[in-house]
């Protein structure tokens, strides 16, 4: 304890009459704050010291000597800027900086500007939105499909945007949009994620061992911030695509030019003409009479003073599907999200930053069906209202403290009915509260120690859990850093889903007899710069999984069951290695990501799942290559190549039939027998996508961007899963395949 106090004293004791520089870093064109922009001292006694802007775009460099010094500000995609400042003893200098976007000036930022210790925390990746928009994708630019290219992140199939990160299922990733939890991030049954890439400013992915400032999920965090809007001038855009079209408008708030802004983004699918044509020309059941999705993002923000800012953000997204069949039968899907957040941020002092936020999030899934006069409903809603306060204190470069609290009310409603009979009516209103404290110590210039603990309470079931997290970083010279992180994590929710179809996704919570899920993670990482153009990240990870709960797959009727009888309880582990080589500058940019990963699960009390087995998304090898080449004259080309070990599946060794069954229609029950669940592998997965983009002026009234893309250029029919036909002897085995070759065209106009 004495040692700890001494360490704290050493790291917090300010040198006499030290000075501070702080301020916002903004986009010069729009006035938007930049998250994760770097500032570094280029000369003097503090040479090499640096900082990065927080999620509000605010940086603080404390404990600077009273001297003249040169600061360099940089951010990917923007021209760097150098500022010479003179500091008086004890002075706090507010220095707001505006960086010009790439292309407006010749010099473009190099990542090497950032101190290696600021490059990224372990397991953390800043997802460049420009890359997301340029990647060739099926029909729509998609944030989650871009994230699937990063090492440690796997997809389940071409048809799913679900993220399987370091052996975790999609519900183990916390998804935050402007600080508000998003419970179902998909459209079109999981084919797309809900996030309109035009609306996004910043995305940060924490793949594992994430800091104590976050909580509530076992595995990882995706923290998404929408754009604040252009505070300097009115701006608009329109994009027409094969599947969906997008429109956006943003600009300064009236009377608050330069201090306030708004943005409104809308996206809607445009399949109706195609469906109408199909309905008119094909006399066939099953063609939807309603089939669309939409997203609306809105954000308004204003600086009240140079220390106070308020903002309000809202999101609404929904999928509507209606499929009539037969004389009077109908199947309807209706699911989506609503989020709202109101934030107030204040710079309390020279080195203290306060963020407060009220959030509301609603997820609803309301499928209904009426078949031959019999009604089915399956209602699942989640309403989450919360308030949170976060405080950052950065008194010196040796010591930083973050603390915060997040409390709210979570209400789950899960109701199933069949033919007028309620089968399950489960309501679970629950209060929850989280609090955390996290410190970052730099006892010497080469060591960084970050530690924190998060206390999490969920009233339903009266569960209190503590989740500690620690991270050690050791600089090895100026270009390399070695990182070690470990943490324990808890999760109070679970998602009942099907990886092939997210339209029936149902959230469930802990409760009586259903304890929180638990996981321990450890990660060892090495980040290094290779020359001026390349950066190499290598990480080894291992994690345990316990108390996993998901719906027992054999349940056909849940009526009368105790809550815990709905679930099977599992455990597992995952470990692996990830290598990411990035090239951020030059005509050729891109990344190579490789993952060596192993994931195993088991459900000890379920007869068919007692032995450890690999889940379907487990793949030993995963290699992704992304390359973008600037061809000149406004043209650029992007290529994406993927290779992965075949997914695990069950290859039965035997088939059999139980004949003369008196109680089932047809009188027989066919069966498959295998000695190992998911004991076989599908053929390896590989695919290449190509995209070309041309940007330029559009008759002097707008800037245009034309994208021509081909997905799966050699039409590799990757296998998804097998199906078995018992009507033939021997049983016929065939395979359902994934996406064939697909073209994609989109045109964007920016006014």
């Amino acid at each position, binding site marked *: 304890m004495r040692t700890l106090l001494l360490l704290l004293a050493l790291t917090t004791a300010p040198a006499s009459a030290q000075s501070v520089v702080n301020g916002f870093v903004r986009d010069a064109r729009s006035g938007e704050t930049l998250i994760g922009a770097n500032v570094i001292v280029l000369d003097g006694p503090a040479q090499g010291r640096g900082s990065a802007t927080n999620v509000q775009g605010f940086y603080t460099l404390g404990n600077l000597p009273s001297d003249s010094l040169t600061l360099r500000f940089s951010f990917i995609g923007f021209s760097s800027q150098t500022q010479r400042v003179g500091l008086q003893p004890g002075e706090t200098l507010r220095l707001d900086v505006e960086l010009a976007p790439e292309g407006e000036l010749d010099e473009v930022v190099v990542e090497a500007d950032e101190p290696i210790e600021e490059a990224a925390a372990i397991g953390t990746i800043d997802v460049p939105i420009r890359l997301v928009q340029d990647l060739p994708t099926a029909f729509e630019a998609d944030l989650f499909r871009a994230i699937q290219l990063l090492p440690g992140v796997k997809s389940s199939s071409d048809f799913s945007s679900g993220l399987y990160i370091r052996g975790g299922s999609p519900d183990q990733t916390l998804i935050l949009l402007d600080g508000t939890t998003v419970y179902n991030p998909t459209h079109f049954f999981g084919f797309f994620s809900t996030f309109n890439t035009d609306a996004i400013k910043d995305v940060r992915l924490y793949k594992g061992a994430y800091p104590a400032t976050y909580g509530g999920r076992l595995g990882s965090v995706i923290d998404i911030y929408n754009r604040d809007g252009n505070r300097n001038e009115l701006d608009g855009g329109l994009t027409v695509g094969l599947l969906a079209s997008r429109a956006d408008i943003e600009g300064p708030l009236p009377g608050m030019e330069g201090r306030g802004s708004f943005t409104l983004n809308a996206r809607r699918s445009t399949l109706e003409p195609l469906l109408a044509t199909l309905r008119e020309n094909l006399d066939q059941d099953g063609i939807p009479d309603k089939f669309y999705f939409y997203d609306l993002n809105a954000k308004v923000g204003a600086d009240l003073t140079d220390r106070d800012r308020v903002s309000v953000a809202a999101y609404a997204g929904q999928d509507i599907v209606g499929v009539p069949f037969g004389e009077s039968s109908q199947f309807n899907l209706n699911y989506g999200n609503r989020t709202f957040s109101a934030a107030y941020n204040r710079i309390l002092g020279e080195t203290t930053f306060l963020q407060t936020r009220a959030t509301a999030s609603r997820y609803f899934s309301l499928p209904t069906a009426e078949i031959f006069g019999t009604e089915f409903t399956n209602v699942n809603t989640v309403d989450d209202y919360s308030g949170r306060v976060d405080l950052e204190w950065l008194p010196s470069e040796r010591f930083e403290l973050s603390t915060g609290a997040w409390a709210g009310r979570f209400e789950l409603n899960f109701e199933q009915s069949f033919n007028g009979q309620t089968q399950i009516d489960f309501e679970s209103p629950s209060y929850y509260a989280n609090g955390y404290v996290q410190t970052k110590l730099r006892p010497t210039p080469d060591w960084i120690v970050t530690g924190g603990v998060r206390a999490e309470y969920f009233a339903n079931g009266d569960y209190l859990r503590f989740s500690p997290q620690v991270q050690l970083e050791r600089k090895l010279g100026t270009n390399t850093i070695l990182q070690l992180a470990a943490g324990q994590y808890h999760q109070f929710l679970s998602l009942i889903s099907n990886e092939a179809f997210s339209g029936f996704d149902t959230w469930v919570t802990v409760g009586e007899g259903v304890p929180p899920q638990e996981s321990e993670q450890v990660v060892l990482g090495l980040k290094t710069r290779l020359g001026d153009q390349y950066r190499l990240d290598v990480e080894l990870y291992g994690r345990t999984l316990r108390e996993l709960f998901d719906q027992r797959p054999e349940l056909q009727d849940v009526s009368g069951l105790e809550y815990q009888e709905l679930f099977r309880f599992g455990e597992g582990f995952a470990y692996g290695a990830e290598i990411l080589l990035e090239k951020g500058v030059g005509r050729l940019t891109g990344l190579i990501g490789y993952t060596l990963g192993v994931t195993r699960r088991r459900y000890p009390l379920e007869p*068919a799942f007692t032995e450890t087995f690999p889940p379907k998304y487990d793949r030993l090898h995963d290699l992704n290559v992304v390359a973008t080449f600037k061809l000149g004259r406004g043209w650029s080309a992007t290529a994406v190549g993927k290779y992965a070990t075949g997914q695990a599946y069950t290859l039965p060794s035997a088939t059999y039939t139980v004949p003369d069954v008196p109680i089932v229609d047809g009188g027989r029950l066919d069966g498959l027998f295998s000695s190992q669940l998911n004991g076989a592998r599908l053929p390896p997965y590989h695919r290449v996508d190509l995209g070309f983009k041309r940007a330029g002026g559009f008759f002097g009234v707008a800037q245009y961007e034309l994208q021509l893309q081909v997905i799966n250029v050699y039409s590799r029919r990757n296998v998804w899963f097998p199906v078995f036909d018992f009507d033939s002897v021997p049983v016929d085995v065939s395979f359902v395949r994934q996406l064939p070759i697909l073209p994609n065209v989109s045109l964007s106009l920016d006014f």
Partner: protein
Amino acid sequence: MRRFVLLLTLVSLAACDSVGSSEYVEQVVVSSFLEVGKRPRPVNLTRTFPLEGPVDLARALVTDATVSISLLAPDGSVEATYPLEFDGTAQYRILDTEVRVLPGRTYRFTAEVPGQGTITAETITPTPIDLVQPAQETVTYLDGLGPTFRVTPASVPNRQSVYLIQVAAQAPDDFEVIEREDGSFGVQRLFTDGRFGPTPDAASFIENIDCDRRDLDSCDFLPSDLASGSSPLLNQESYESFPDGSIQVTVPWLAFGFYGPHKFTLNALDAVLTDYIATQAVQFNPTTLSPGEIPNITSNVEGGLGVFGAYAAVEVFSTVVPE
């Protein structure tokens, strides 16, 4: 750095894929069912086939086993043993024609199969279902939620009763294949006297049936497939219960493809059949599992596959007339 590379290499080696595929081993499949109050049903013993063949149909039947079913006393001792004999065609039949399956009792199945060893299984029979109130003699299609009847529920040890309803139209009309104007083949109702036609929803399905030639066997779907069906497994709590302990069963309109007389069979399943049918369905309709993840069926048969299960049943009749 060198240590880091070494660590990475160790992880790589540890991660070598140990997943393998399963080898085929022939097993015997039991199909044996006890209905409470009835004579034990004939037993089938068959063999598994390798997934991709070859299939030797001549070896499919096990014909040389020694099979018996025993009634156990509450202390687990054998109270009575009933031997079965192969009938020379396909099944093993109980010799004693007076034997009836008792409710709430434990039965043990034993088969000695040359080359396969001893196969055993046990089950506890449910208590019987008694009809308290029959279904309406005539019900109008889509009037209300469906025909109803009341029964005293069955019981099984340590869990709520689970039911499965079979619905069978007793006089659905016949259909023939016709050539449509566009040259394709479909089906058409024959309007036979005393037979009944399809409901409007079923009729619209039948209109869309396509056939390859003028032969019902070449059709992608048969109208008769809509004449009968089984429900999924239904928990007792899904039915309305009454103070006298009885429950009211509603047969949803979804179950009716044709008008006319129908037979409803309400089966109360023992735990063995419940688990077998529930997990068998997962193999072909995986719901929350990933496609291709196929768990084995939960079976009570030791030394083989299949099921030795028990059930209680009651039959109810009603006639459905058009709106």
